[in-house]
């Protein structure tokens, strides 16, 4: 125990027993504000006024085109965020959001290009194909962890790095005409209809995904088992919960969600396969899931926050001489400040009258 002696009194640092909702929200807000300040300092090193950068970003995000852009960004982030969040509730780390997105995107583009004569069915098949591809990919770390206890963090990360490259390869295979390296444009039947400034079918999928995830933990036995396993795997297994079912099951759900996220980006946003079409969404999803922790509404809030940061970052990168890496810097600092805040808040300072060791022994007898 850490203690500082002050005369007869001890200042002791103790773990806080109850969790306060307001403190939690305060920690998140504090982390966001501190990060914005820190990023402001970083931006000013490029000779850009942080105030100007913030004004540009905020006024754009509040404009109609900025708002639809925000919704469009939230679609993949929410789906991949949930893909990390669900295994995380079982205490498992899925850092392969990127692998699922790219795998789903490649599958959707291939199916879309191969089925021009299937009418509107083509769109549905592309989306389902993306979901299946994501599940197949994420089954690998799930099975490896379940049967041979192979660290899922490393396997999911390595798969992510692999699929960024495989996607670039797939783009060269499906290369379309024109000067820039992009995949061939999908036939109209495979492309999602859009409303209001590019909002596509992914929005409906993301909402459905969110609602189903909500009911998974609120209403189903499997959701309950995931939580039990997450709290204490040993006790959960002793009470008859199937460990492999939890591990492989949560990873399959993660694969489905991230695969369909990639597919909806391809058929909805881009209409073709693009190189690097997921700018670090897999890592952002980890940040979203961590802020979400045990509360799915917080996942939604974090998705909004990071979608906003993406919009803001890409806007100032376009107009001011600031590198895109500013977005990733922000993500990481928010989470690190959040962890610092949690660490400080979890331990509160107690002032206690000092008692000598002998007195303690007497009183305990």
């Amino acid at each position, binding site marked *: 125990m850490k203690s500082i002696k002050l005369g007869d009194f001890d200042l002791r640092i103790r773990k806080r027993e109850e969790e306060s909702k307001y403190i939690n929200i305060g920690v998140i807000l504090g982390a966001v504000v501190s990060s914005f300040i820190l990023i402001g300092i970083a931006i000013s090193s490029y000779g850009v006024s942080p105030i100007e950068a913030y004004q540009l970003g905020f006024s754009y995000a509040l404009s109609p085109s900025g708002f639809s852009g925000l919704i469009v960004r939230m679609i993949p982030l929410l789906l991949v965020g949930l893909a990390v969040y669900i295994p995380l509730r079982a205490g498992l780390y899925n850092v392969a959001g990127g692998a699922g997105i790219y795998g789903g995107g490649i599958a959707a583009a291939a199916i879309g290009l191969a089925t021009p004569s299937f009418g509107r069915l083509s769109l549905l098949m592309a989306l389902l194909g993306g979901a299946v591809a994501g599940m197949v990919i994420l089954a690998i770390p799930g099975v490896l962890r379940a049967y041979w206890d192979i660290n899922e963090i490393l396997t999911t990360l390595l798969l992510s790095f692999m699929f960024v490259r*495989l996607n670039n390869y797939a783009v060269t295979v499906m290369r379309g005409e024109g000067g820039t390296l992009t995949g061939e444009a999908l036939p109209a039947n495979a492309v999602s209809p859009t409303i209001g400034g590019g909002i596509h079918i992914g929005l409906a999928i993301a909402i459905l995904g969110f609602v189903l995830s909500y009911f998974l933990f609120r209403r189903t036995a499997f959701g309950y088992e995931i939580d039990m396993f997450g709290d204490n795997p040993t006790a959960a297994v002793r009470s008859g919960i199937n460990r492999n079912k939890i591990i492989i099951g949560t990873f399959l759900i993660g694969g489905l969600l991230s695969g369909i996220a990639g597919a909806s980006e391809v058929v909805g946003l881009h209409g073709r396969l693009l190189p690097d079409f997921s700018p670090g969404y897999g890592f952002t999803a980890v940040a979203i899931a961590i802020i979400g922790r045990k509360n799915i509404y917080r996942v939604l809030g974090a998705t909004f926050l990071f979608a906003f940061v993406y919009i803001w970052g890409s806007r100032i990168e376009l107009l001011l001489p600031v590198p895109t*890496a500013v977005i990733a810097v922000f993500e*990481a600092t928010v989470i690190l400040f959040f962890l610092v805040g949690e660490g400080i808040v979890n331990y509160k300072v107690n002032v206690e009258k000092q008692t000598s060791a002998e007195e303690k022994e007497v009183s305990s007898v």
Partner: protein
Amino acid sequence: MSQFISLLELAVPATTPLLLACLGEIFSERSGVLNLGIEGLMSIGALAAIIVVLSGGGLWAGVLMSVVVAGVGALVFAVLTISLKSDQVVSGVMIALLGVAVANFYGNNWSGETISTFSQTKLPLIGDFLASIPYVGELLFMNTPLDYLALILVPISWYVLFRTKLGLKITAAGNESKAADTMGIDPIKIRYLTVLISGLFAGLAGAALSLGFTGYWTANLIDSRGWIAIAIVIVARWDPLKAIIGAFAFGFTYSLQFGLQGFNYQSLPLSDALSGTYEFLFDPIIISTYPFVVTIAMLVFFSVGTNTDLVAPQELAKNYIREGE
């Protein structure tokens, strides 16, 4: 044969950063701390080294700066996990993300400029003799000073971990931290020390890449080597002597990216029947995925049928919290 030797020659400089990062990670993991931030620490180290050299400092000043910067980064991770008891995995992934992002952010101004890297030299006194060994002589004993440093650090790390009191304390902190604490070994202090070591080694690894190999900075220079180094720790069973074999195997797969460029697969058997397969396998982008495929395959190979729990530190990735704290 000569083609194979030239591939091996490329593998040595690719091995050094992996080996250094891996050695540092062995220290922190043996004491119970899973430091996943290596990729980020290597990034800021590599950039810091290049900036010093481009600003007129010497190569060794660059190495020193790299070590200092990565060491400070490691201390941030240490405060988060060891003092504030944050989740090691989350903190590590975020330190990695932050390090890469910060390096990309500030590196923007420094990319494109090239420095002259550490030159390949023979060791003093016995260098001439060693380099004259057929086939492997030039390969192993005609390298940069940082390559030799990495090589020397292998037995030193092994000795410290397995033959000294400090090594015992590190093992105790990673396996029986409560018992160690009651016997007067402070796991907190030990873990701070080993995380710092992992940061210093990651800095060296970054410098070995930027000052010993590429000679320039570019975005994402580290290219996942930090993560692969962490996988090597598992494959090497937390043993520095085995780490050198693992690091070389992975260095070799990295070197394929350069070594197999323009490789003529017509000479391979069944090239008519398998030309499509060969074309796929020798595509430069596909070759760049080999390190990841090989790493996953190695993790599987070394995990199936063996009980990792027997060799892994018992309290790996578990924060030490004193009773009543």
